């Protein structure tokens, strides 16, 4: 089984570097173009199911992909981004100033330390892993499924697959609308590709 993990397109919170977690922020114009670029790349790929986080930025990206396939998007809150609690809507500079102690702890162990009043990436890994396993059990070996979600969710899942210490999750780059691919066999889950976003670069008319 092939599993394509796709990050949502850009929002204005991405460009303003705001922490948004579960805030419902729509794709911006650039994000919509990125979503079209990934949808276009996958238009001839046989896809058997599309799952998405229920946050609007992921769901809208998933809808762009579904437009080329006879599929409905199944949403699941288990694929949501980390809940950032009281830091929602703030920039990192705001957080460093207002919550100096908690922020220092967060910087030291960015996988284990929870966002103030929210989740840790370790918790995200656990809940996302649970729904990923359910997806794997639902589909036959030869199928390809698409899961549209978030940078934190994707990097936490990949840390789980490769047994990377969750505190190292920021070392994995996950760009807007990039594709990371997992293959599932009787020997387990393998990482086939991390962060292929050539379609986004190409859609901007740049050399890849």
């Amino acid at each position: 089984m092939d599993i394509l993990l796709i990050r949502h397109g850009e929002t204005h919170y991405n460009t303003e570097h705001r922490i948004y977690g579960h805030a419902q922020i729509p794709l911006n114009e650039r994000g919509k173009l990125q979503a079209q670029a990934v949808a276009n790349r996958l238009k001839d790929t046989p896809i058997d199911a599309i799952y998405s986080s229920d946050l609007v930025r992921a769901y809208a990206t998933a809808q762009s992909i579904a437009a080329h396939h006879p599929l409905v998007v199944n949403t699941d809150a288990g694929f949501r981004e980390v809940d950032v609690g009281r830091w929602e809507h703030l920039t990192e500079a705001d957080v460093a100033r207002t919550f100096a102690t908690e922020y220092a702890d967060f910087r030291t162990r960015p996988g284990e330390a929870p966002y103030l009043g929210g989740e840790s990436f370790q918790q995200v890994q656990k809940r996302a892993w649970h729904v990923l396993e359910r997806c794997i059990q639902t589909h036959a070996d030869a199928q390809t499924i698409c899961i549209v979600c978030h940078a934190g969710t994707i990097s936490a899942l990949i840390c789980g697959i490769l047994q990377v210490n969750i505190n190292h999750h920021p070392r994995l780059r996950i760009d807007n609308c990039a594709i990371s691919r997992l293959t599932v066999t009787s020997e387990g889950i393998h990482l086939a590709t991390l962060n292929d976003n050539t379609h986004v670069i190409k859609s901007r008319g740049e050399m890849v």
Partner: protein
Amino acid sequence: MYIVFVRHGETAYNASGRYQGHTQISLNERGFAQATIVAQRLRHSRIDALYSSDLLRAVQTAEAIAAHHSLHIHQHSGFREIDVGLWEHLTVSEIASQYPQHYATYKQTPGHAVYTGGESYALMQLRAMDALMQVIAQHPTDSSICIVCHGGTIRAMICAFLHIDINYYPHMWIDNCAITSVHYQNGVFRIGTINDNAHAEADWRE
């Protein structure tokens, strides 16, 4: 520093599933075509220095990349594939029947088992990282470096970058001529892509 790793193109041994290790085997026709395509993809990329494992299949791939850039190929034996010792030239099923005990040990601890008469992944990782740190030390921190090497070597280095137990290297895959990129700053490696092979998709060829 930006470092892009490219796996060599296909050889007859890749196509027939034989272990090649340090065998001096040429790219096959498909491998040369793959090398041309990845070289096309990288032709506008900034490359300040080009390195290659000194095994023929890597050097031939590096030559295709060098053709678009006026660069000398620095060959370094530290970037060689794992030495598979007596398993060289054999397929997995031949190894399983001829060396059942060693093969069982390998399946159990793929990172630490020593290939009979060759190396372990753990040892290869040390020499590859040693070679990489030598390369990094020789260039300014804002350089862009391309290193052509091997599927095993690239995966072993990724394990080092992310502090992954070397026994987990088989949980990743690197295709012929696929690109893996990393940023190195202040002793930390951050991964940009692993096994980006978009250039192998028909629509992406020019």
